[in-house]
Structures are given as structure tokens and as C-alpha cells.
């Protein structure tokens, strides 16, 4: 996909392949938009973690449920939306992974990593599942609405 359009949307299965696929697409889009290498890694990792949440915790691998992945380019931001069709999550029940009593837990770091790597992370319930919005501000020559070169 070339990110010359302002918005690109994918509908993906609830599978492990979707997680790798989403990460690869994010890497490609971030590269095309001219993000520096460290931010490309941050964006792709945040999208991977979001896809993991959607496939595992949202849709629970259900074959009849889909994951929607949307990349949008505004003047100053890359906006990535991941929607699932699951039961949603209660953010208040996600413990702080940096608390000493949680450091040795084997899960619960995905949302923390997304928040560490992206400028904005929003999670909200929808009529049919959960919507995750990840925003990274565009800096440098591609900022201000200029399209990235292919």
C-alpha cells in the first residue's frame, strides 16, 4: 500500500497472521511517511500490541469476528485505528506494570508500551466491540500535509 491516499482501511481475520500483517503494514506506512527509524519501530510495535489485544483479548481468535485496521494521514498526524468485535476491556482492571508487585507478571504490558511509544492512545467501547486509536505526530519534512514520496 502506498500512503499517498489520506485513508487506507483493511479488514483482517482474528489470527496470529493478522498481528504480523498489521505490524508490517504499519512499518511500511511509517517508512513511507518519512518517520525516523526509532519512531518507525515505535509505531510498528504499538500497532502490533494493538493487534494482539484485538485478536486475543477482543475477538479471542473467533473466526467469525474481524479486526479493522485504518491508517489516516492528517496534516500533522498519523492516526491508526484498530477495531475489534469483542466484549471490550475494563481499563480500570489493568494493573500498572511498573508497580513493584507487578514487575514479575508475565502479561499486562501491551497498553503501557503503546502509551510509551505513541503521542495519543485512546481506547473506547463501540456498539460492536472496542476501538483503539493510536496517534503519532509527524515531524520533519513530511509534516504540514505534504505527501510522502513513494
Amino acid at each position: 500500500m502506498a500512503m499517498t491516499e489520506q485513508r487506507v482501511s483493511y479488514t483482517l481475520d482474528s489470527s496470529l497472521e493478522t498481528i504480523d500483517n498489521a505490524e508490517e503494514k504499519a512499518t511500511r506506512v511509517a517508512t513511507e511517511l518519512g518517520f525516523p527509524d526509532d519512531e518507525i519501530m515505535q509505531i510498528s510495535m504499538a500497532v502490533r500490541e494493538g493487534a494482539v489485544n484485538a485478536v486475543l483479548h477482543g475477538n479471542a481468535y473467533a473466526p467469525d469476528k474481524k479486526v479493522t485496521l485504518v491508517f489516516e494521514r492528517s496534516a500533522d498526524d498519523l492516526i491508526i485505528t484498530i477495531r475489534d468485535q469483542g466484549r471490550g476491556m475494563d481499563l480500570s482492571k489493568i494493573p500498572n506494570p511498573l508497580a513493584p508487585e507487578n514487575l514479575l507478571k508475565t502479561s499486562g504490558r501491551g497498553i503501557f508500551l503503546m502509551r510509551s511509544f505513541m503521542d495519543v492512545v485512546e481506547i473506547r467501547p463501540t456498539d460492536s466491540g472496542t476501538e483503539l486509536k493510536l496517534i503519532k505526530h509527524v515531524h520533519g519534512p513530511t509534516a504540514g500535509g505534504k505527501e510522502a514520496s513513494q
Partner: protein
Amino acid sequence: MSMKVGSRQVDGVVIVDCSGRITLGEGSVILRDTVRDLLSKGNKKIVLNLQDVNYIDSSGIGELVSAFTTTKNQGGELKLLNLTKKVNDLLQITKLYTVFDVKDDEASAVKSFK
């Protein structure tokens, strides 16, 4: 690139050379099975050499924690060796750098076991 592991003995310590990605799915499973197999054979001094691991996600981080606690619970020690910058940064932001014993050269890692 999926994950690959190879292990070798150095002065009673098992060095597990890992390469590729430790992520949800195959990579995490390979790491889990490798550590469990070593422990089941009585190897309780384990070093995970992560020099060629270029990517770890939250599941992979969880698997490292699991390997660490499983080894400790069986009376052993598991240490990390040769972190790449990406993996090092991840352990820093998750505060796990304070949990793991991280070494940057193999000889001192081997020597550090009691």
C-alpha cells in the same frame, strides 16, 4: 525472521544463543520450551544470549519474565547477555532492567554464577 536457539555449555553454565524475534506465537513458545527442557535436565545456570534478537514484543517480554521466575523457583539462576539497543530500551522502560541480571560479556556472565 522467526526465532532460533542453540545451546552450549561453558564451565557448567548453559549459554542459550537466541536469534530472530521473540514475539507472540512461535518465538515465545521456542524460548519457553528451551528453558523448560534445560531445567528438566538439571541445568540451573542459564544465560540467554540475546545478541542477535532484534525484536521482542510484550509477549516476548512476558516470556523472559516467565523464564526468569521459573528458573528461580527451581533453585536456579537465569541471566541475560548482550542486549541489543532495542531490547535494552524495552527493559529500561518496563523497569525490568532492575529485575534481570544483565551482562555484556560472556566470560563475566559465566564467572558471575556462584
